[in-house]
Every structure is written in C-alpha cells, then in structure tokens.
C-alpha cells in the first residue's frame, strides 16, 4: 500500500509537463518556404506530419537589409505559431502511456479498465483492454 502511494506521488506534476514532453518529440521539418512538424510513435515508429503551413513571404526576396531583418523576425513568429498548432494537433492524436511515459499512436494505445496504457505495457502488466485505433 505504501508502495502504491509512492507511485501515486511520482505521478504528480506529470500533467503540467505534458506539453513540454510532447514538444520534445516534435521534430521540426520546416523549410524556408513552409513550416511543418512531425511526431514519431515511440512504439511502432509511425510518423505523423502536421499540416504544412506556407511562410507568408515565401519566394519573396528582401531587397534591403532592413527587410531581411523584418522577414527573419516574421519567419520566427510564424514558425512559432505553426509549431503551437502542430503541438495542439499532435496532442489529439498521441497518447502518453502513464506507465512508460512514451508517446504512442492510437494503434498502440489501449483502453483498459483501471488505467489506459500502451500496448507494450499492457502486455507486460497483463492488463486487458482494447486498442483505441
């Protein structure tokens, strides 16, 4: 029972760090002209790519140095927005296993009676459930 309490304690704060953790595995695939991000299922390796968003000044070459600075700042701002969008989209597609803390796709995540978990953990812990995907 004491051991169970300790496990529970270890869970505190997990929810607050979800975005950071998912952000860690969000890979930047952006180019000069578009912003695109991907997440890889840590169980099966399936890659999800966010919807590509074109840079508003793509294929426009700054004629002055001033414009070059402005476009660079604009690029960073739009990339940040695209990143946030990709993060939000990814959150709805990937589940974090509460046992092994990996981010897995719906095909690798199981709905169980007491606690939802990844397929690998369910097998290991001998938990019954059904695949979400």
């Amino acid at each position: 029972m004491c051991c169970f309490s300790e496990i529970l304690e270890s869970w505190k704060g997990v929810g607050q760090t979800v975005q950071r953790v998912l952000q860690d595995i969000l890979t930047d695939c952006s180019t000069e002209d578009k912003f695109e991000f991907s997440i890889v299922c840590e169980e099966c390796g399936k890659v999800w790519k966010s919807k590509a968003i074109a840079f508003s000044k793509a294929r426009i070459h700054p004629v002055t140095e001033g414009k070059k600075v402005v476009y660079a700042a604009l690029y960073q701002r739009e990339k940040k927005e695209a990143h946030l969008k990709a993060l939000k989209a990814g959150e709805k597609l990937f589940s974090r296993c509460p046992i092994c803390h990996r981010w897995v796709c719906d095909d690798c995540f199981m709905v169980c009676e007491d606690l939802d978990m990844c397929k690998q953990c369910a097998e290991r812990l001998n938990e019954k459930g059904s695949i979400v995907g």
Partner: protein
Amino acid sequence: MANNMLKEFGKILHLALDRKVTLHRKLMMYLLCLIMAALGILLLLLTAIGGPLKAESQIAQVMENQLHTTYNKVSEEMETYTGYSLQLSRELEQDIKNFLDEKGISVSDLNNQPEALLEVQKMMYSELNTTIRLGRSSGVFALVNATVNTQISEADKSRSGVYLRLINVSSNVILSPETILFRGNTEIARENGLELHNRWNMELNTEGLLGYQELETGLGQSESGYYWISRMNLKNTWEDVILLLVPMYADSGEFLGACGIELNDVHFSLEYPATASSYGSMVTVIAPVENGNLRLDQGMAGNTEGTWLDTAESLSIIEKNVYYSTYRSTKCDYYGIQMPLEIPGSGGQEWAVAVLIPRENCDQYILRNRVGIMGVILGFVLIMIALAWLLSKKFVRPILQSFQDIRDGQQAGDSKFKFAELEEFCGWLSEREKPPEADELPPNMAELFEHFARNVKTLTNAEYNIFRYYMNGYEVAQIPTEACVSMSTVKKHNGNIYRKLEISSNEELMMYLDLFRRCDCIEKLQLDEKADVSEVGTTK
C-alpha cells in the same frame, strides 16, 4: 330482526349514496340514458311507420296479389268458356249431322231453304239456351254454313244461325239470366218469348270473324280445335267482344258451321272492377303482347274508372325496376306488372294478364310518404338535439359548480364536490401549491438523480477519469491535452460513458451535470473508491 335488517340496509344505502360519483360513470349514465331513449323512440317510430318505408315494394306486393287473383280467375273463366263451347259444339255437331242424315242432304243444300234452316236454328236455340244459362258468358252463338238467300248481296258473308245475348250482364243476376235474340229467325223469339235486340238481324255476318273464311275452305284448322278471336266490335253496336269460335265438321270433313261464346267488354269490366287502393285505382287487363307492347285494342280491360286508361291503344314498357314496370300510353304513364297467359287456340299469339296503376297517383303517394317520413325523422332529430342539450346542461352544471368551489377556495375533503376526480384534482392543486421543504428535491427529480448516480458507479476507473473532467467543467476538446490521451481515446471512453449513463449525447451529459450543480448534488457523483490516477485540473 326485520327492523335491524332494514336499518342495516338503510346504512348501506346511505353509504352508497355518499360515495363520490366519477365523471366517467356519470357521463356513461347520461349517454346510456340518451342512447336508450333514442333507441326506444326509433323503435317506436319504425314500428309505426315501418310499412310506408317500403312504399315501392308495398305497391308491387299489392299489384302482385291482384295479378295472381286475376290470373287465376281469368284462367278459370277461359277454361270454363272453352269447356262449355266444346260441349256445345259436340252437341250441335251431332244434332246437325243427324238432321242432315235424316234429310239425306249436305249442309250446302240448306242454302235458300228457310224451313230447314229454321229447324236447324231451333235445335241450336235449345243448346245455346242451356249453355248461356250454365256458363257465365255474355253471349253464345251458332251458325251453319248456309244462308237463307244466296241471291242477296254479300250472301257469301251472311250465315244462318242464332246469337243469344244476356240482357243484363251483371254478375249478380247470373242465376236467372234473361236473354235476348241478337241474331236469328224471329220465329225463335216468338216461340221462346224472347225480345229482339235493338240491332237485331236475321243472319250472322262472318266478315268480322277472322279466320272464318279459312274454315269454310278447309284451311286453317287449329290443333286445339277452337279459336280465340281478339277484340272486335259487334256490328252496329257500341259493344266490343272477344269470341271463342269452335268449328263443326261432318264425318266427311265438310265444314258444317261454327259455334262459340262471346266475352263482352261490359261483362269483363263488371267481372274485373277497378280496385281502389292507397296508391290509386288498379285496373286489370288481358291483352295480346306484340314486341313487348300490350295491345289493349285487341284485349279486354276491367273497369277503368279513375285510371284514364284508353282501351283503344297499346301500352309500351319504357322502364323496368326491381318491383314493377312503367307503361306509357298516349295520355299518361302507368306502373304495373304482367304475367303471361296461356290461351290455347290463340293462334300462337302471346297474351298476358296485367295490373296497372296510374303513375301519377303512385308518385303522389310515394312523395307524400317520403315527406311524412322526413318530417318524422326531422322531428326525431330535433327532439334528440333538445334532449342532448338538456342532458349536457344538467351534466355540466355540477362540474361548473365544482370549478366555482375551487375558485372560492374550497379545500379537498370538505365533501362539497360531486365528482371524485374534481376532489382529487383539488387535492393535487393544494399539494402543488405547498412550498417545498428545505433541502428536499421533488420526488421525481430525486429519483432521476439517484438513478444517474447509480449509473455513474458502474463506470470503470479509466472511464470515470474522463467523466471527472466533465464534472470539473472541461470541454471535450480540452480533455486530450489535460489527460495526455488522444481524442480517439476520449471518444472511445465517451461512448462507454454515454451507454452506461443511459444518455445519448454530450449535451445531455452536460445537462445532467448542470442539474446536479444547480441542486448542489454534484458530490453525489464523487466516487471515493475510484483511484485518483491522474491529476485533474480544477473547475474553470
């Protein structure tokens, strides 16, 4: 003992009377009264006017009765006339043959022999007198195929014979008929004390006897041995007659003459008087049928008084219904029915007996009848409406009184209500108006909450984990981020949650949770035993 029983009975009766009457029972009572009254009146009316309701069939029934009576009478008379005529012919035939054999002459030798012809006429008179007294005919005749004077013009159509007729053809003097000599030698009249007819003639004219010429020549012999000659006018008189003609032959086949019976139109009209009925005068006719038309001009009609029937024309059938046919004449239409009449010796001609009633009289009767029935039905309907109005007023009055009592603040249990439903309704209103107790839910709401809370207990820990986000005010779109699970996982849990909570949508779930929050009952959905497996944010 009996006194006690009476008291007990009185108590029971009192209790029964004190019982509240239900609206349904009272309405049933009134409706039953109404239906019974209506049925009673209807039965009374049907009993009273049941006959005239079937006016057309009644008219047909009356006509059928008359027709059958007439048919039987006509058939019987025809048979009688035929029988007497055949008897007469046999007797006369034998007498004439004996006479001729005795004299050793043939019938043609009697021409221009007044004495011999007188002797023959005397023989004839004897037989004819017997026949006219026994039979019921208006006249009898017999003739030999010879004339007293072959030199006169039209001698070939003049034949010696005797024609006796009744002076009075009325049937009430049939037992002692007085006869008159219409044709024959005056010596016959003198010897027998007979008067001569005012249109008397010495001999019979065979011109009007259709078929007589053929008999003379030996052609046209009938299988039945006699002939009915359709209506003809007696020469020089105003009377019409139908004649039954029976030819007489010698053993050698020589045509001796003929005899027969007369059926007079006056006699016929006296025999068949017009029958007065509610639908008009019924007249009887017997007539040949040609192409479906009744040839009245060749037949006989009974008394036509009140029927405007012209016996000198033919009636055609213009319409037939289930009951009777409509006959048309030049003057007016008639309703009637007919029956084929078999007359041997009619030469293959179809005859029929018919009974006719003027259409105008019948139509007036039917119209009067219908107006009468409609009046009765209208009266009946008005009475029923008035009765319904009175009964409904009586029925509604205590209900309105009860409503007034409710408005006046009458409470249930005051025993002033006449209907149990109204007292119950008043009680329900009182209960409803009571302010609810503090911390007390209406019974139906409490039951609903209990049911929902019981269903929440059936959720698994994982499902409850998602459910708890809803309890804490999260939207569906927020849960994946908060619970670190995908939207598909949330949706999968949602499906199970909806099924177990017996709801169908997120909106319904939100409505339940909102109700629980409003009633401060949200803690009923907290499950202590469920494992707190994830950190859930506070209500936003």
